[in-house]
């Protein structure tokens, strides 16, 4: 049987929920291990999608960046690692300690959204960047521009990470992988996958990014001992030398 419908069904890029994870080998051509085994198991392809956009939606803090660090450490084959519009100045000694080669790190500070999109497009499609991490935060990027970035990442076979505010979680997006994150005061990261390739989304997990801190005894601030009695007052001023 060779009807057009059959041909369409046999197309490797067409995902069918009924066939579940059957199509995995053909679709998951290239992924990058996340470095967090619990997250790898929840992703159908088994890692960050190479040559596509990964959206991380959440507040601006170091949580998301720490999630990316193990992968960024691995990606050093190509000349550049690009940080596009970071909200704060990255800390060089900390990055070196994390295993990132500072000579490869390229930091770009565009002035507006237009320049940001242009830079992202150029760096992604150039093919000489291992990864591009873009902090778009509250900037509203249109669906068309997202699609263009996704295509540029595909063209340059470059891993694109787009950090956006959580407010965009409800909007549709062409990105290959979308994860909402939330940092816990304990240092853990609450992740919820809202879109991924190759299967159903909706998985949620809690990652501990600093396992070495798990051992310590954590007491919430409310439970810390408080001096309920009044603080001791200072001695009265010396009468012989009153200070005017």
């Amino acid at each position, binding site marked *: 049987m060779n009807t057009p419908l059959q041909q369409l069904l046999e197309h490797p890029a067409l995902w069918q929920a009924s066939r579940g994870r059957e199509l995995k080998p053909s679709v998951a051509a290239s992924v990058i291990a996340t470095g967090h085994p619990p997250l790898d198991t929840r992703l159908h392809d088994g890692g960050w999608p190479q040559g596509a956009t990964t959206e991380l939606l959440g507040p601006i803090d170091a949580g998301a960046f720490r999630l990316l660090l193990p992968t960024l450490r691995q990606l050093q084959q190509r000349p550049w690692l690009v940080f596009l519009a970071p909200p704060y100045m990255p800390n060089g*000694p900390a990055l070196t300690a994390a295993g990132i080669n*500072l*000579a490869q790190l*390229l930091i770009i*500070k565009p002035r507006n959204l237009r320049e940001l999109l242009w830079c992202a497009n150029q*760096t992604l499609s*150039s093919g*000489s960047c291992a990864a591009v991490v873009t902090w778009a935060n509250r900037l509203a990027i249109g669906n068309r521009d997202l699609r263009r970035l996704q295509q540029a990442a595909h063209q340059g076979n470059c891993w694109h990470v787009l950090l956006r505010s959580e407010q965009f979680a409800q909007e549709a997006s062409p990105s290959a992988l979308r994860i909402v994150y939330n940092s816990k005061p304990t240092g853990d990261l609450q992740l919820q996958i809202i879109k991924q390739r190759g299967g159903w989304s909706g998985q949620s997990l809690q990652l501990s990014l600093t396992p070495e801190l798990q051992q310590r005894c954590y007491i919430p601030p409310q439970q810390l001992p408080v001096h309920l009695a009044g603080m001791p007052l200072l001695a009265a001023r010396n009468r012989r030398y009153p200070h005017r």
Partner: protein
Amino acid sequence: MLNPLWLCLRFPQLALDGVLRGNEARAGLAPELEASEREKHREEKALRFLADWAYQFTPAVSPHPPDTLLLEIAGCLRLFGGLQKLRHAIDSGLQQLGFTCASAVAHTPKAAIAFSHSAPPQPLADTFPPSAQTFLQSLQHTPLAHLALNPKQLRQLHQLGLSRAGELLALPKADLGKRFGKGLVTYLEKLSGESPDPQAYITPSPCFESEMHFPHGLSTVAMLAPVMRRLLQELHQYLSRRQLYCSGFCWHLLLFDKQARHLRIELSHAQGQLETFYSLTQLQLEKLVLTAAVETLLLRTDQLEPAAPDNQPLFRELSGPGDSDQWILLDKLRGRLGAEALFCLQLQDEHLPELRQRKAALRSPATTSAATLAFRSAAAAQAAPGQTVFSGGINPGLRTTTV
């Protein structure tokens, strides 16, 4: 000994071509005559430009102002596959540049200049250089008016009833010398090749410069782009002929309101690719604001360096993008955003955390020089196997290699 062979390139319309090239479309639209002052210095510049251009064919290029170039081509005929192919290459090249040219081949420089005046020049179809007999024959038939004689001599010779060079050459030299002076005899000896006629050759200029003039002006950026591409094409050809790379160039735009605009384009990695040059120029053009129409467009560069052989991987599919791609990307970003918008971090030996790092501008690592290589191999020879050798480079931070 190889018989010298001279190719004369005469540019009868140099005054016009030097000024008007690049204006073909305009000339077609507005054919009305327009008188403007002749500019000698521009002709000199144009002739110098052509001499530099002709240097690609032969190292023996001799300019004869105001409008003639002499090329000694006996040594390069084999390289270019014969006289016909060489002349074809020169003719088509000049046509592309927008110059009209009359050319002729002869065995002496003076004869080549004389031949270039004859109305239908020698047919281009000559596959072989003319033999000595043919040369002498055609010299015999050359009209006296085509020789470099002053009007008085010419008039006197005509009164004698002479009209062809052959008749003049047949006269006894001693008598001619008595009547017309020693100059004429020397000239005739040089013309027929009896006495040597050394020429002064150019040394190629160490920088590239090409300009175009627009008497009517280019008023929009969109009109500038194709003209700039054409000049960049000339630069590209210049670089590939000389086996040079360029690490930066500068556009000078002279406007009608006596203002000048300069667009400086720096490349972090010296190269010779036309498309890169053009896309970087376009990025600069986007920011350009013109207050008046552009009268003169000049492209100039003296940042030339010998071309490094391009390394190609043996297995293309196994390797990533080329080494130069990363620098092209950097130049593009810098061209659009400015140099201060992109930087990398560099660690410093400081105690205070806030001073531990600083922003560093991105530079291309200098190509590994022979000195570095020698140092590296000497260090490697001294080191015991397994010992770490530090090899210095311009790249920030030390790279370590283990032998």
